[in-house]
Structure formats: C-alpha cells, structure tokens
C-alpha cells in the first residue's frame, strides 16, 4: 500500500480572497437593495429615447 499524503490545508490567500469576495458581494447586495434609489431607476423605460426621437436633441 502506497503512502498517500493527506489533503493539504487550504492556502491562506484562498481564504482571505474568499472572505474579501463575500464581503464585497454582501456590500453590493446591500447597496442595490436600497429601494428606488439605485442606478437605472431614474427614468421610465424608454422615456429618454422617446424624447430624443421626438426632437429632444
């Protein structure tokens, strides 16, 4: 029977990177779940384009 090494410890950079990514995703989720204040919610769909087509420029 050959001697098998045990599964090595997860590298520190993977743990730190995972924690940083989880914090970043959590912060982004909190920022975007703030109701009607997020980006892209300032216009009714297609209203700006309609204005442009109507001679808004």
């Amino acid at each position: 029977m050959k001697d098998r090494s045990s599964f090595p410890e997860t590298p520190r950079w993977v743990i730190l990177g995972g924690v940083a990514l989880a914090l970043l995703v959590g912060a982004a989720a909190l920022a975007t779940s703030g109701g009607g204040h997020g980006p892209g919610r300032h216009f009714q769909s297609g209203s700006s384009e309609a204005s442009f087509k109507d001679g808004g420029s």
Partner: protein
Amino acid sequence: MGPHLRRLLLTLHVGLSVASIGAVAAFLALTSAALFDAEGFAVRGAYPGAAIVAWWVILPLVVAALVTGTIQALATQWGLFRHYWVLAKLVLTALTLAVLLLQLGGIETARNASFIGEPPPLGNLPMSLILHASGGLAVLSIVTALSIFKPRGLTRYGWRKQNQQVDRRHR
C-alpha cells in the same frame, strides 16, 4: 493539443485579457470626463462613446477571454477546477461579465440621456458607472496577477486527480 496550438491559444488569451483592461480604462476615462465636466460639453460625446466601448469592445473581449481561458484550462494539465488560482480566475471573470451585463442597462440610459439636455438628469448613475468600472479594472488586474504568479494550492478535486495519476504511474 499540440505545443504550437497551445502557445497560440495562450497568446490569444493573454492578449484578450490585457486588452479588456485597456478597454475598461478607456470606459473609465470617458465616464469620468462626463462626470467632472461641469458645463456638460463632454457629456454628449462621452456617454455615447462609453456605450460603444462597453458594447463593442469590453463585452466581446471579456467573453472571448473567458472562452479562451476555459479552453486553455481544459486542454492543459492545469484543468479548470484543479488549482485554486485557475478557479479564482474563472469565478472573477464570470463575476466581471455578470456585473458588466447588469450595467449595460445603465450605460444605455446614460447614452440616451446625453441626447436630451445639458447636463442630463442622471442622479447617481454617473458615479455608479465610475465605481463599477473601477471595480472591474481592479478585478481584471487581479485576474492578470493570478495568471502571472500562479499561487500554489490544489483543490480537493485537483488533489484527488493528482493521487489518481500517481496511482496509475505506480501500476
């Protein structure tokens, strides 16, 4: 896959990845110019330009980098899920693509608004575009650094595969 084809694919993948960083930097420059231009003269040109860069340069480059990177990983001994650095690259690139796709709506809104008035009433959108582009630039730079440094670390799957290969060699 032969060594010549492998090198060609690697060159293509590195070129696409580095080019995507440059494209995001160009997008960041355009959106920053629009935000800090008090008179709004640059806005009319900057947001349509940023939209073209996003749709026709950043999006194809990121998709192509993801596809070539996946082929590269699967066709070599690195594998897609064996090493943490390859897995991290895959996750970060996929995340960048997902955020980019989510931001395209906002970019279109800014582009359309740039035709209306000076300065266009965009609220928090200009700052959001700059923050997301800065984040994208940082993540793509980390992805490039991972490719260069290739930090050590086998995943559980990679460790199992490695043991299977050792077993086969000893038989």
